[in-house]
């Protein structure tokens, strides 16, 4: 019998089953809900059969790991060859404290560093700016100048680790400091490995930590990609991020579509700059969230890889296979952590992490169970890392590549993810691209609507959250809150002011003037920013020059 014949037969059998066996059971054990839906509002069938994947062409749609369209993974050996990088985002207090935390994590088996910066740094203010009051070193480490960076990496040779920096608005300044640090440690620029998030587009509608308006922001992103392509070839100049889009309220389809569309926009910007696609595309990397619905998330990651490969080949005519690779970092979704019965979060994080591993992530951050309450304690951070190690070494899920391929359900969901993402792409193309969509509040409205819908479902108990709207207890978990000493701010301000007095201020003024000049001339600013940080100009001073030329972004409020 032909495949088509077989499928028709299965479809008939399904119909028979629905008329004979199913009704008997439905009478005795009716289903729990009238319908089942995932976060992206897909109606989930009772059972999936070969009929649901009848359009699937193995070689066209899945292929083999390490081969186009990379649905099954970007490497041929995947986690059998090398486990994913276990990279825990951390940073708080002073550079000294975070340096200690880094050394602790490295000792415990972490394989890459990831820096969390405090809000003043992220927003391009020095610690002594009045707007920084109460925020210095609280949600991350304060890095105002190269001096802080030197302390942060004291005793950590940066040719032995890779470092990820979650930084966007001032990404150029922090990367410049890392490069300058490399120069000091004697590490050639071509040996520096790591990532700057440097994804400004999603800032305008998701994370919203913005300094400059959209166009100069995109220009700076492109400067970094161009500079790294020429001088820091092992650096991932950008991590195109869906994580924050999801956390802001988007569903899985929106996260997928908006992230990849941002990617398209960066590609176009680099091509306009005169770069060749295969020169820079291999270093583009991605960052997604892993939420609670296991199969939906797996489908999202797989669809993401396939769509990206198709875009690179079809839309951008890439020739190098590496340009078609979507390498991804995944973080378990912070939004899903509950303040109620916080130990349950360990289970949530495990499920989420498993989805990322099953779907072939390159790198993973697992959240700590106490993060809905405060900064994570050392114990909670260790458990989060151990969760990854248990998945890696005990569960067996990493023993084969893309084990869910061929699942009628997962393949069907993967296809649907792709189709719905393509619909968004078309809409965004018609709107005139990502910046036009930002300016008219399109992404913002889509995300706010999804966030509100989710909350209404929780409020109405259509969506059960254990410990929050069901299975509740009055017990309070005795959490030990990790607090940042308010002295951190005073000390940091004092250190910064001492630096500002003692450095060669004539040199600082000269280099800032040069920066002003080059900013107006629309040059690639990376070389000048490196000169500026080496002269110990601060992040506030450098961003200040750019603010003068570019202006500051005024938030478009969409509720």
């Amino acid at each position: 019998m032909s495949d088509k014949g077989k499928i028709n037969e299965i479809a008939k059998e399904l119909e028979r089953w629905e008329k004979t066996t199913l009704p008997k059971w439905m009478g005795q054990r009716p289903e729990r809900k009238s319908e089942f839906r995932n976060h992206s509002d897909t109606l989930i069938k009772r059972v999936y059969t070969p009929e649901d994947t009848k359009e699937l062409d193995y070689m066209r749609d899945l292929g083999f790991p390490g081969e186009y369209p990379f649905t099954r993974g970007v490497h041929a050996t995947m986690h059998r060859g090398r486990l994913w990088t276990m990279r825990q985002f951390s940073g708080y207090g002073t550079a000294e404290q975070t340096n200690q935390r880094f050394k602790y994590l490295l000792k415990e088996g972490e394989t890459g560093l990831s820096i969390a910066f405090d809000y003043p740094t992220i927003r391009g203010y020095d610690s002594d700016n009045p707007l920084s009051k109460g925020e210095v070193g609280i949600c991350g480490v304060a890095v105002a100048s190269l001096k802080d960076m030197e302390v942060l990496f004291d005793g950590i040779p940066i040719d032995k680790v890779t470092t990820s920096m979650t930084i966007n608005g001032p990404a150029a300044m922090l990367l410049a400091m890392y490069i300058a640090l490399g120069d000091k440690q004697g590490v050639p620029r071509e040996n520096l490995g790591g990532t700057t998030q440097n994804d400004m587009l999603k800032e305008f509608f998701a994370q919203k930590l913005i300094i400059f308006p959209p166009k100069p922001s995109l220009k700076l992103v492109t400067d970094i990609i161009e500079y790294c392509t020429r001088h820091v070839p092992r650096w991932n100049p950008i991590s195109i991020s869906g994580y924050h889009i999801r956390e802001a309220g988007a569903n899985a389809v929106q996260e997928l579509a908006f992230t990849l569309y941002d990617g398209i926009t960066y590609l176009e910007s680099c091509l306009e700059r005169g770069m060749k696609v295969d020169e820079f595309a291999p270093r583009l990397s991605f960052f997604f969230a892993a939420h609670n619905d296991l199969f939906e998330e797996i489908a999202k990651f797989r669809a993401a890889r396939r769509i990206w490969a198709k875009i690179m080949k079809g839309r951008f005519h890439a020739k190098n296979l590496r340009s078609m690779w979507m390498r991804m970092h995944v973080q378990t979704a912070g939004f899903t952590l509950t303040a109620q019965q916080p130990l349950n979060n360990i289970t949530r994080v495990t499920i989420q992490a498993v989805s990322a591993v099953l779907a072939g992530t390159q790198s993973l951050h697992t959240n700590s169970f106490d993060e809905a309450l405060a900064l994570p304690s050392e114990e909670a951070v260790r458990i989060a890392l151990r969760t990854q190690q248990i998945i890696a070494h005990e569960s067996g899920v990493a023993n084969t590549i893309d084990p869910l391929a061929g699942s009628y359900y997962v393949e069907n969901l993967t296809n649907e993810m792709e189709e719905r993402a393509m619909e968004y792409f078309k809409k965004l193309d018609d709107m005139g691209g990502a910046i036009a969509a930002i300016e008219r509040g399109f992404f913002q409205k889509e995300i706010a609507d999804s966030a509100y819908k989710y909350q209404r479902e929780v409020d109405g108990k259509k969506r059960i959250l254990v410990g929050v709207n069901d299975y509740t207890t009055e017990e309070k978990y005795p959490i030990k809150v990790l607090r940042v000493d308010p002295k951190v701010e005073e000390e940091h301000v004092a250190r910064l002011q001492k630096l500002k007095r003692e450095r060669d201020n004539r040199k600082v003024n000269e280099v800032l003037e040069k920066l002003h000049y080059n900013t107006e001339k629309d040059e690639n600013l990376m070389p000048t920013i490196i000169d500026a940080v080496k002269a110990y100009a601060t992040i506030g001073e450098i961003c200040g020059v750019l603010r003068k030329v570019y202006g500051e972004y005024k938030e478009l409020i969409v509720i």
Partner: protein
Amino acid sequence: MQSERKIRVLIAKPGLDSHDRGAKIIARALRDAGMEVIYTGLKQTPEQIVETALQEDVDVIGLSILSGAHKTLFPRIIQLLKEKDLTDVLVIAGGIIPEEDVAEMKELGIKEMFGPGTPTDKIVQFVFENVPKRT
């Protein structure tokens, strides 16, 4: 006949953090419940928040903060409200505020704190029950 004045609420994001998912959801829920809601947007200084409250003649201020800077920013906002003689405005807050800080914040004059997982209906109801009566 004069129609009844709608309850006017200012939802404000003090400080530098940008987590506005909660603030926007609360703004929408209060609006759906029939209130007039003004949302400040991100990165508001205590001065800006109190100035907006004054200009907009609000009955309620909802502060949302997830950066951990509440111990610096909330006392300043309360102090400024006193200086502007806005002491009858109902002030509530939400976000990530450790349990052990709640009592201290309430003593300051923040009437209630709503942590993660609070149903929006509970906040709506709280506002209806505690909003100061206009004379």
